[in-house]
């Protein structure tokens, strides 16, 4: 088994830490919720009060990373620790793709989940972090089913769409979720055809067993969130309608002119996504004039697209 769990004596019994069930279980507890990007403890407090299920601590919001250029790395440890002391909800933080040591440090300081994220500058062009070696759960981005399953095979406990972070444009998140859903449908349709499953596994560069698992479950074997470009309550509810388990909101909140009320409105839209009256109530809490201006992804050079990072490995 690839799983690395720790057994510990606890009085006269033995307890298990860091097992796959505990890591995937953590992700299950944030379902139907909103994880919000924050850059300081004050923003984290606002997020908690708005009903966020967790916060993602960053040095700079994705929109600022995009504008500033240069190398984007893990956040300042002191800033992460201060946020951990301020709020009672789980804390997530990002490490660079393939930067096993940044991940190890985030595990060491006790963050609740690590996002191995394309928003930061990739550190290893050959491979992602081998996440089975960690007891802290990881979330990874994907653009289609194959990418999701490759990350799960590396030990990821949760998947999110990549979307196109820092654009305020939900189009890419929708595209990625559509591709994941289409991929799952294709696998499910081949459920009783081992040869077809084998072909799909080879195309996606994953094992037959992993594909078979998806065919049996009819979904990913881990929690699946939407991320990348969500800016309004309607965006968030749209992603929930596409079968997501919850959403990450990055620049959409703190790059708007009404972050407090927008944070609350997005949470409300995720909770009640299936009830148009409630989503309309949430949407009417925010003004479109206050939304982040955003970027049209079709005008972005390929080199500026964060979603391509780490996609082919």
């Amino acid at each position, binding site marked *: 088994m690839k799983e690395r769990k720790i057994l*510990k004596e*606890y*009085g006269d*019994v*033995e*307890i*298990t*830490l*860091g*097992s796959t*069930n*505990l890591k995937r*279980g*953590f992700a*299950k*507890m*944030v*379902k*139907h*919720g909103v994880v919000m990007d924050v850059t300081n403890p004050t923003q984290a407090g606002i997020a*908690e*009060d*708005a*009903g*966020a*299920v*967790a916060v993602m601590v960053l040095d700079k919001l994705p929109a600022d990373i995009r504008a500033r250029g240069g190398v984007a790395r893990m956040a300042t440890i002191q800033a992460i620790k201060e946020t*951990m002391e301020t709020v*009672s*909800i*789980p*804390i997530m933080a990002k490490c660079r793709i393939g930067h096993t040591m940044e991940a190890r440090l985030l*595990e060491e300081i*006790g963050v*609740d*989940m690590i996002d191995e994220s394309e928003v930061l500058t990739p550190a290893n062009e050959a491979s992602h972090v081998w996440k089975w070696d960690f*007891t*802290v*759960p990881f979330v990874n981005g994907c653009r289609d089913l194959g990418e999701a399953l490759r990350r799960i095979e590396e030990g990821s406990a949760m998947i999110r769409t990549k979307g196109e972070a820092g654009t305020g444009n939900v189009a890419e998140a929708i595209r990625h979720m559509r591709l994941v859903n289409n991929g799952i449908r294709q696998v499910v349709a081949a459920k009783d055809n081992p040869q077809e499953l084998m072909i799909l596994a080879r195309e996606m560069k994953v094992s037959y067993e992993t594909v078979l698992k998806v065919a049996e479950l009819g979904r990913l074997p881990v929690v699946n969130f939407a991320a990348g470009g969500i800016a309004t309550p309607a965006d968030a509810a749209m992603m929930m309608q596409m079968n997501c388990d919850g959403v990450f909101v990055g620049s959409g909140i703190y790059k708007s002119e009404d972050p407090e009320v927008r944070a*609350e409105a997005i*949470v*409300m839209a995720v*909770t*009640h996504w299936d*009830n148009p009256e*409630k989503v309309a109530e949430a949407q009417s809490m925010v003004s479109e004039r206050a939304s982040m201006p955003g970027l049209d992804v079709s005008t972005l050079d390929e080199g500026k697209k964060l979603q391509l990072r780490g996609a082919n490995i």
Partner: protein
Amino acid sequence: MKERTIGLLGLQGAIEEHEASIKEAGTRLGIEINIRHVLLPEDLDGLDGIIMPGGESTAMIKQGTKSGLLPALRKRLADGFPAFGTCAGAILLAKHVKRDAKSEIREGAFPVIDMTILRNGYGRQKDSFSVPLHIAKVGTDLNAVFIRAPIIEEIHPEVDVLATFDGHPVIVQKDNVLASTFHPELSGNPDVHSYFLKLVG
């Protein structure tokens, strides 16, 4: 065939896992289970019992207060409505809640079980654990999964303690209300859900 309509507090958290467990328990007991996700006060009509899943209690309280569900459910629980809360759900059912070790005791969302519960009592995710647990009254041995779990620090003698771990109650019962600080819905064993269905009657 006997039929029961079970509500799942649908504000946030591991809702679907409970849905699967309660259905499995129903099949085993020969009870047809109708599931309803409870988000609004009117969703409470005609329910035989409710399950409150794990998740973030702060997020649930925020949304439940806004929609008017919390006051409606609180009234219903005061009249003796069968309920089963796990982790965050247990926090919602506790009379006294501590946000963290340093903070003052506050009244819980539905003060049905006279106990003091400390949120994230074992620590952060790195301290999440599982342990084999025997629950005599339920008649089961399961792998109890604790995820950023709360600790029941004090409990009124009239509340039944069904099992303890490290000196603290981890599953408790007051009349037809059941609360566990661990996640039976993640143990792959529907015995606790079967026990709850028997409480529902």
